[in-house]
């Protein structure tokens, strides 16, 4: 089958093929970046100028507006990676492993920020930077898992083989996500129990809930933007490696 006689691509092929992906994703980067920036501007305005202090903890509640989005995102990114891992192993989707790789370092950064902001929130509010309770320990474990995945990616020369093994590790580690989510229910813990995504609706007044939601969307769109650019870069990086390999072979032959 040559280029001329190959059947024309349908919409699904256009989504899956890396070359096609590069073409249509180019037009998404700028809009995503603009949406993220706008959401951040709105969110920060709300956080500092248009929301009340909490009746119990005062102004430190404003740290929540950066802590919760990062914490939520750290878990969301891992779930996205786990889905990509299934895509790599089961459906052999050509973009799945690119997506997984691009998400790993980003997820590590969000988890680190969640731990950092959590510590700064904890000190004035509950008296301590850190506690070895269920939620914090399992989030630290999540951070270590992200780093482990980044290390594993870098240990292999052949990124395509690495992809499959990273996928296995990602899925094995996915058990940690339910542990994080339910740790506040299962164990006596310093960390407060779920107050937004719970049965019975959120336990916060709208004046605090709205900045929280805006900031969560802002961080999520930031992730989507960076993830898309990172995926594009990874595809380019693989092309560079293939070309350099080809050049090395041609150099030897000549």
């Amino acid at each position, binding site marked *: 089958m040559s280029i001329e006689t190959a059947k024309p691509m349908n919409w699904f092929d256009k989504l899956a093929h890396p070359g096609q992906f590069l073409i249509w994703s180019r037009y998404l980067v700028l809009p995503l970046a603009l949406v993220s920036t706008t959401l951040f501007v709105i969110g920060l305005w709300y956080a500092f100028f248009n929301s009340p202090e909490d009746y119990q903890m005062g*102004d430190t509640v404003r740290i929540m507006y950066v802590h919760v989005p990062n914490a939520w995102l750290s878990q969301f990114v891992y779930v996205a990676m786990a889905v990509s891992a299934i895509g790599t192993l089961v459906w052999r989707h050509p973009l799945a492993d690119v997506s997984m790789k691009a998400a790993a370092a980003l997820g590590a950064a969000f988890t680190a920020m969640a731990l950092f902001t959590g510590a700064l929130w904890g000190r004035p509010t509950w008296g301590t930077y850190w506690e070895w309770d269920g939620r914090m320990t399992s989030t630290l474990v999540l951070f270590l898992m992200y780093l482990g995945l980044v290390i594993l990616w870098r240990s292999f020369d052949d990124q395509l083989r690495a992809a499959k093994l990273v996928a296995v590790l990602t899925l094995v580690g996915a058990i940690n996500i339910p542990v994080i989510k339910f740790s506040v229910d299962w164990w006596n813990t310093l960390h407060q129990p779920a107050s937004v995504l719970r049965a019975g609706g959120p336990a916060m007044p709208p004046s605090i809930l709205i900045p929280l939601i805006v900031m969560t969307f802002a961080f999520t769109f930031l992730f989507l933007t960076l993830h898309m650019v990172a995926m594009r870069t990874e595809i380019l990086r693989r092309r560079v490696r293939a070309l350099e390999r080809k050049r090395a072979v041609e150099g030897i032959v000549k």
Partner: protein
Amino acid sequence: MMDLGPHASFIISAYIGVALVIAALIANTMLDSSKQKQRLAELEAMGVRRRSAANNEAKK
């Protein structure tokens, strides 16, 4: 700047830390991207071609 209460330093440190990490993420992502694009352009200029690019050339 508005009054952020007795624990203002914690609040500001948190936001500044996050801002720095986000800035680093964006910078890293953009630098990596331009580095790969540049390398690709260099290789192209050297005449190393991808298989599908070579096919397209042959078709012309």
